[in-house]
């Protein structure tokens, strides 16, 4: 990703864009921050915001014609906020917060001809930067503004003049005529003509100021023109006049410092904002009006509290992963870019990159379709290619994938009756790991129900998506090549897929392989039966991998109805469904967050759930939610007692691997004439200990092989009081340690196990004894 690409990606997250009130304010007042302080009753903080954004704040906060209010998102939800009135309240009830420090005056001179609002703003802006400014005016100095803006009092104007004098301005009464203009033009470095207070001079300039810069000619700028109402009436718009003064001040500074007048100034006149603010859940609230002539503090707080605090976060609100890192896609894109660009120091965004479920919910919720999945996946691929992907992020999951694709667990079986294999059932590695019985029942049903000429095979394998999620494209592609070769050898059958991730993966990465979802196959062809009266109601949970698979979603709902189950739709369903925490290998890289994701999903389902993905089902149940898999209610595969099935604990990681092997073994025995293989373990342990070990990604198989290897080498330490043994074994990039006792019959009892990735000479190699 280069800088240009980063900016393109960043631009698609609008969270940092201005709210409409600010975009519509010609002075770019940060109304949202102001309202936040006002709602908290922090008047001094609120005034700091005013002083930061408004020129001559004592005047401006009282006379602003607040164009922001017409564009407040509250307008249709009770009424726009009283932004102008609250600003006036704040300036009148909090003391000045900013301090000015004496600075050496710059060696240039600025003349301001006319002391209208624009003229004063020019003087304010430039004198703060130590430019010596001389204001020329006619008549009594304060009178010009007092006459123009009737809501102003003498004291307010006086305070700002006092500030201008302190900042080094000179205020001089002169007739504002052509002779003065000529004198100013030649005697000062730059000149500003106030079009309202020095209307005659302005008319005599002969050219209109450039709207973007206020530049007229030579060293002259002008601004502060009257605005025109839709009916043609001329009036003084305070915000417009002040902003013209501010823009001219920028131009005057550029004039005297020799900088381009126009470079980087396009945004000053922009009044639109791309910020998207979701309004779902925002209830209408009537304005809080002052009971007397002006707001009381409590009333002002209540009115300010009506501010919606416009921001997007449409994705962050729904995603526990996006919430965890405290930012939003725009900031994450920057962090991910920096992660790839650093030369020295820590890769601080590794966890951010590897935490994403890659589920795509954010893209569906984002009006600009920002994709964290694309960002994180390409970052993972880059990390793998450049060799700095942390081993702990995905290694265990990839080992699990290898196990699912090993000779013990994977197989392809053509139609056992010798017919041409037109279809092959592809249950996916996790359904095989969790529901071996139902995989066989489904296979048998498909085999019997499909027309007699169409043979049905069985393909036990992982689709390879874990490698894709891990950013290991090479592994992913080689896995796909293996599957493709098997598929071609089998006569190119259509694969009937029971896993949404497998289906999506094949659709995207192996489009030449024809696939159909098991549910669409059953619903469309094989279970052509009427809807049954509803006996039970479940909350449907769509798998994230099927968010764009309408056929999958439709078939699941139809099959449930045929089985007498009525379904309720959760708030985020179908295309907007959330991930259970399995996607993107979050379960492996950040198991705690994955558990939060499952709970978050479970909490959004009001009733016991029905899932069509086995990992969703198993993870929801593990989070304490009652949940059935669709196979639990279909006539050919349903379990006897639905309510028990909805709570049945999913198998642990060790059992999942064993179940895959057992399923493949059963297929070999039943259909291929194989002999039954029995697995016996010599190491036993308490079930709770296994749960604890699996949390550390230590499997029963690891423990068994560790103990046997240590025993074979006689390489054990002994604790003399308890008689416990400890030894280690390093079969791959992990060293396993086991603490156990030996029984007289050659079996062992495990007491504990731990592991590490670091290498330690003379540990972990049982065979290395002298």
């Amino acid at each position: 990703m280069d800088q240009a690409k980063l900016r393109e990606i960043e631009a698609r997250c609008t969270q940092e864009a201005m709210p409409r009130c600010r975009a519509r304010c010609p002075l770019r007042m940060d109304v949202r921050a102001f309202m936040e302080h006002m709602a908290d009753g922090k008047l001094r903080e609120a005034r700091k915001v005013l002083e930061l954004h408004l020129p001559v704040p004592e005047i401006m906060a009282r006379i602003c014609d607040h164009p922001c209010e017409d564009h407040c998102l509250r307008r249709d939800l009770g009424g726009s906020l009283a932004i102008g009135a609250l600003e006036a309240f704040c300036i009148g009830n909090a003391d000045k917060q900013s301090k000015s420090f004496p600075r050496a005056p710059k060696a240039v001179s600025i003349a301001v001809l006319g002391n209208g609002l624009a003229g004063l703003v020019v003087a304010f802006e430039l004198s703060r930067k130590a430019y010596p400014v001389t204001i020329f005016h006619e008549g009594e100095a304060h009178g010009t503004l007092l006459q123009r803006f009737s809501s102003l009092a003498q004291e307010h104007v006086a305070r700002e003049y006092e500030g201008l004098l302190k900042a080094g301005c000179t205020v001089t009464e002169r007739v504002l005529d052509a002779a003065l203009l000529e004198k100013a033009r030649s005697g000062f470095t730059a000149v500003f003509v106030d079009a309202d207070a020095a209307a005659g001079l302005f008319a005599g300039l002969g050219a209109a100021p450039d709207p973007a810069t206020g530049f007229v000619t030579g060293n002259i700028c002008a601004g502060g023109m009257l605005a025109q109402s839709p009916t043609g009436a001329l009036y003084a718009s305070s915000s417009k006049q002040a902003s013209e003064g501010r823009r001219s001040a920028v131009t005057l500074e550029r004039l005297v410092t020799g900088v381009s007048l126009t470079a980087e100034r396009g945004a000053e006149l922009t009044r639109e904002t791309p910020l998207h603010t979701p309004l779902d859940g925002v209830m209408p609230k009537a304005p809080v009006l002052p009971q007397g002539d002006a707001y009381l503090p409590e009333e002002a707080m209540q009115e300010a509290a009506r501010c919606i605090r416009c921001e997007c976060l449409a994705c962050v609100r729904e995603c526990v992963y996006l919430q965890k890192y405290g930012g939003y896609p725009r900031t994450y894109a920057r962090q991910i870019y920096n992660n790839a660009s650093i030369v020295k120091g820590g890769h601080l965004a590794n966890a951010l990159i590897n935490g994403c479920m890659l589920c795509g919910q954010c893209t569906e919720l984002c009006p600009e379709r920002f994709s964290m999945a694309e960002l994180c996946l390409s970052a993972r691929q880059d990390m793998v290619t450049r060799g700095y992907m942390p081993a702990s992020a995905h290694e265990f999951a990839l080992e699990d994938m290898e196990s699912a694709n090993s000779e013990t667990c994977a197989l392809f079986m053509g139609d056992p009756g010798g017919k041409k294999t037109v279809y092959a059932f592809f249950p996916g590695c996790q359904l095989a790991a969790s529901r071996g019985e139902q995989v066989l029942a489904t296979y048998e049903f498909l085999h019997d129900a499909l027309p007699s000429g169409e043979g049905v095979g069985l393909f036990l394998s992982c689709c390879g998506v874990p490698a894709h999620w891990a950013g290991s494209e090479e592994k992913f592609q080689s896995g796909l090549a293996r599957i493709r070769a098997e598929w071609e050898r089998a006569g190119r059958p259509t694969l009937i897929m029971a896993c949404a991730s497998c289906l999506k993966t094949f659709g995207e990465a192996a489009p030449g392989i024809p696939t159909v979802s098991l549910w669409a196959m059953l619903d469309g062809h094989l279970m052509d039966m009427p809807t049954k009266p509803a006996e039970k109601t479940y909350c449907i949970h769509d798998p994230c991998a099927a968010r764009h698979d309408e056929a999958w979603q439709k078939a699941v709902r139809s099959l449930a109805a045929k089985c007498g189950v009525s379904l309720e739709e959760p708030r985020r369903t179908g295309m907007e469904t959330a991930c259970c925490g399995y996607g993107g290998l979050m379960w492996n890289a950040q198991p705690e967050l994955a558990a939060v994701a499952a709970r978050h999903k479970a909490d959004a389902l009001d009733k016991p759930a029905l899932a069509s993905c086995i990992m969703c089902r198993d993870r929801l149940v593990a989070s304490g939610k009652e949940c059935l898999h669709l196979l639990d209610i279909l006539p050919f595969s349903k379990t006897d007692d639905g309510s028990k099935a909805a709570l049945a604990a999913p198998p642990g990681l060790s059992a999942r691997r064993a179940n895959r092997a057992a399923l493949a073994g059963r297929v070999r025995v039943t259909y291929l004439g194989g002999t039954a293989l029995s697995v016996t373990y010599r190491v036993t342990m308490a079930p709770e200990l296994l749960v604890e070990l699996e949390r550390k990604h230590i499997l029963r198989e690891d423990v068994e092989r560790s103990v046997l290897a240590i025993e074979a080498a006689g390489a054990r330490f002994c604790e003399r009081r308890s008689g416990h043994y400890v030894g280690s074994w390093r079969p791959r990039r992990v060293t396993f340690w086991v603490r156990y006792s030996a029984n007289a019959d050659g079996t062992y009892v495990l007491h504990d196990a731990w592991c590490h990735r670091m290498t330690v000479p003379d540990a972990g190699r049982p065979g290395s004894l002298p």
Partner: protein
Amino acid sequence: MSMSPNYTPDDGDWICEACACPLEQQKVQVFYLESAFDVSLPACPRCKRILIPKSLAEGKMLEVEALLEDK
């Protein structure tokens, strides 16, 4: 980055069964991702086999592994 130097067994009175020797603290180097650390670990004085206590594996080692993986 450093690992505190001395790690003793989490509990008990340990011997290397093959050598029938009580374990003694011995200075060794542990390695991960091109980094090496000197630590003192329980070891058999004869066969030099090392014992990594659980508290070290799941404490400091895990922490340092994570730091090095993100380096």
